[in-house]
């Protein structure tokens, strides 16, 4: 399954990537599973996406929860809590 993943702000800088389109195993079917898969890359991924770190996930430009399902072609975004206004 292929997803488009976007990274913003401090997370984009820390991970050193703004967008990627990885090929994912079929069992990565929720936001939670995706985070686990990214975390398993180790290094800065394990640090920035560790449990307890404050980050948000959107799926197809809507705020998502850990159990939000993922489908091929989805646009997933990871970013810090927002600070506009």
């Amino acid at each position, binding site marked *: 399954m292929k997803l488009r993943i*976007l990274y*913003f*702000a*401090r997370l984009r*800088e820390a991970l050193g990537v703004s967008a990627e389109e990885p090929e994912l195993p079929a069992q990565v079917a929720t936001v939670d599973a995706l985070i686990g898969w990214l975390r398993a890359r180790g290094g800065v991924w394990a640090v920035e996406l560790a449990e307890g770190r*404050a980050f948000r996930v*959107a799926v197809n*430009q*809507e*705020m998502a929860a850990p159990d939000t399902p993922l489908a091929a072609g989805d646009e997933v*975004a990871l*970013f*810090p*809590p*927002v*600070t*506009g*206004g």
Partner: protein
Amino acid sequence: MKIRVQTEPFDLGAEIAALYARNPKVGAVASFLGITRDENEGYAIRGMRLEHYPGMTERALTRIAAEAMQRWPLLDLTVVHRVGELKPTEPIVLVAVAAAHRGEAFAACEFIMDYLKTRAPFWKKELTEAGGRWVEARASDDAAAARWDASEWGER
């Protein structure tokens, strides 16, 4: 209802006039202007860069504005948010709400700001003497947004 995300400055007077000049039902316009300061949490600020998530930003602002229109009897509203490079004294955001009476205009304007601060995908990076510094989200903004969950606004 007008929602814009832009790098260019905006004309506050013209934005507000557009809300009432051709609608004689409007008796009240409450507005909020957020401005870049030269200091934040003890850091001297030379400027800031505002990043956003194109597409999702407009969606989120439209949803917030639509919820305000549903909660209160509003006549019109405008949200303009700048992105890119900003210097101290430069406006960042304008929220202006038109209604027949002031109570609903004030409440909706504050509601939109509170939700925008916690739900619209913008991020500020401040340029300090020591380099760039990503602004941290504030717990007080979460608290401000949470007060709208209980519908206690009518009691004020």
